[in-house]
């Protein structure tokens, strides 16, 4: 039994601050009702910004806190930075949407805030118990968010599907954790690592596979992707933006930490599993996306495919592979933020539209939306010299350096296939007969987000080194 001092809590200060501010904002919301939605949204954004500052002040590579259940390394630091930036972006994007679609509920930003706390806890988890708690906190908030437009049948369906499948995956996770605990006698990551390195049994391997399957569900890697298109399509568009931006990054960070700390000695076992997941995700993401007409479903398949590319970097492993994964996830998040900023502007006569055909002739109606979207689409399909090309290039380079020629070739081929559906959007915007104009009332904060992501996507061409160096530094904290 150790005593908890204030200074030993420094690594967890950002999360503590967020939890306290979430509860304060909850009180404000309960007292002032739904008219305070805007206030609470900006309050949550400010809370994340302050938590970011606290985290930078707290430093990295501090002592593990709270009975060795919580760590802060340069890797977790970087990943939490991404999660917080993603949540700030998605809450900012959602404010105007909530008012337009009449989902004015003050709980919306609060649930996003709670899910953020959950994701940060699970990234920093150093124990199976804290991992599970963080994961449940984020999932539970996200289930409710998916169904928040409860009078809308598709939103309710999306929440229900996400909840049932998520509950099954939590069950698998717990079953796996219990097998691992039963074999090693510990829930601590390092202790599990050393015990498994000394001896291995079939039961522990099966437990490990259960954990991996549950986490593959969270990043929607094929064959655990079934929920993604339906949930993305049914949830309100601003929630879809949140789903596409943040939770997968947190789950990916967790997978990386698990594979390289407690299960590092099971490399031969997870190598094959991850190889297969990467291959299937790329293939399904590319081919199933070809026939989609709804842009939200298209983004869902695109995210499945992109997770496949990120998994290649994970399979390649090592410093080069993992830092490529981190660059990839960062740039993917930035591009998705921009794309969703534009998708949220697709409204006619006060109603949101989400079909690809609705974009017809956008270049003539509203060129200042069409050109950025075209740049994002070129970038995400990996056309040089945009940022998306570099992130794919780094991944394939890492794959070839570690001898994964098959995966690299499949990756290049599927990205050619996938570029068809990205380019189809550009074709619709620039060469089809113009449809009616979109509503033109767009909040300046959303323009700012689109502008910022455009800046990063284009700016990365001129100066790619800072992000690459930061990711390489962050990965060093892992080994």
């Amino acid at each position, binding site marked *: 039994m150790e005593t908890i001092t204030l200074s030993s809590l420094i690594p967890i200060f950002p999360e503590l601050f967020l939890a306290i501010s979430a509860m304060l904002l909850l009180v404000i919301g309960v007292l002032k009702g739904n008219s305070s939605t805007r206030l609470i949204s900006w309050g949550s954004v400010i809370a994340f910004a302050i938590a970011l500052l606290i985290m930078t002040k707290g430093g990295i590579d501090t002592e593990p806190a709270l009975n060795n259940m919580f760590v802060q390394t340069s890797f977790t630091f970087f990943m939490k930075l991404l999660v917080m930036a993603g949540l700030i972006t998605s809450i900012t994007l959602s404010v105007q949407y909530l008012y337009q679609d009449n989902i004015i509920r003050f709980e919306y930003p*609060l649930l996003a805030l709670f899910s953020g706390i959950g994701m940060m806890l699970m990234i920093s988890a150093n124990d199976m118990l*804290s991992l599970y708690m963080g994961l449940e906190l984020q999932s539970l908030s996200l289930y409710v968010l998916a169904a928040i437009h409860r009078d809308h049948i598709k939103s309710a369906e999306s929440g229900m599907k996400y909840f049932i499948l998520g509950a099954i995956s939590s069950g698998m996770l717990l079953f796996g954790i219990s097998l691992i605990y039963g074999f090693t*006698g510990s829930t601590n990551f390092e202790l599990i690592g050393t015990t498994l390195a000394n001896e291995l049994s*079939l039961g522990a391997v099966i437990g490990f596979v259960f954990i991996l399957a549950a986490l593959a569900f969270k990043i929607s890697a094929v064959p655990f992707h079934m929920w993604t298109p339906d949930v993305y399509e049914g949830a309100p568009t601003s929630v879809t933006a949140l789903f596409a931006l943040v939770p997968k990054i947190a789950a990916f960070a967790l997978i990386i930490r698990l594979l390289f700390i407690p299960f590092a000695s099971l490399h031969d076992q997870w190598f094959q599993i991850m190889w297969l997941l990467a291959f299937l995700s790329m293939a399904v993401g590319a081919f199933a996306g070809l026939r989609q007409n709804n842009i939200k479903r298209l983004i869902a398949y695109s995210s499945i495919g992109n997770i496949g590319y990120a998994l290649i970097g994970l399979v390649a492993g090592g410093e080069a592979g993992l830092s490529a994964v981190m660059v990839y996830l960062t740039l993917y998040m930035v591009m998705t933020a921009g794309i969703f900023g534009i998708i949220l502007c697709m409204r006619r006569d006060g109603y949101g539209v989400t079909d690809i055909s609705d974009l017809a002739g956008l270049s003539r109606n509203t060129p200042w939306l069409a050109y950025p979207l075209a740049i994002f689409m070129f970038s995400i399909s990996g056309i040089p010299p945009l940022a998306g090309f570099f992130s794919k290039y780094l991944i394939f380079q890492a794959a070839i350096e570690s001898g994964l020629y098959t995966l690299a070739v499949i990756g290049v081929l599927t990205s050619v296939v996938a570029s068809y559906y990205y380019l189809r959007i550009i074709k619709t915007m620039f060469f089809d007969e113009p449809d009616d104009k979109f509503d033109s009332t767009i909040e300046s904060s959303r323009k700012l987000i689109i502008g910022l992501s455009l800046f990063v996507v284009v700016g990365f061409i001129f100066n790619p080194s800072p992000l690459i160096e930061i990711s390489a530094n962050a990965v060093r904290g892992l080994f």
Partner: protein
Amino acid sequence: MISAIAFYLFASITLLSAIMVITARNPVHSVLFLILAFFNAAGLFVLLGAEFIAMILVIVYVGAVAVLFLFVVMMLDISFTDLRKGAMQYVPVGLIAGGILLFELISIFVAWGFAKAADDNIASPTPDASEITNTEALGQILYTDYVFPFQVAGLILLVAMIGAIVLTHRHRPGVRKQKVADQQSRKRSEAMELKKVTPRTGI
């Protein structure tokens, strides 16, 4: 000897009533069998010397969860026979998946063993029951070593509460609620009027 008999008794009743939960035609019977299963599982915990968990199982699961199920079953007008109609077509797939899982579990069970280091790894070994009750032993680690997951569990429950309110609470217009402040701030001058009534004239 007696404990072995008790074990097999509790275990077999648990299994049988669990089967009855999913096969009983009447949903109320299902819930009652579920309660029976919980009671017998609690008996198994008592045999293991975990009397605290046994009592919690009875109080929380029987007292709250199962009774809640009963309320839901009785108050919602759901036709369970209609719900079951489509279920038969999933039986073959379910059997295959269940069979694979069973095979895996058996193979784990056959090859099961603890790692050599497992005994040293255990963070808080179960203390001797003669020295300390297990309620006290749980309390000693739950609020110290495991205070972090305990607090996060609190956050999860808060989110569950917010979620339940978000998804089910409806604001109905036109509901007349008691407003104590309004009642208190009423003055005599607004609320009543004094009329001087002269005899034999009426109002």
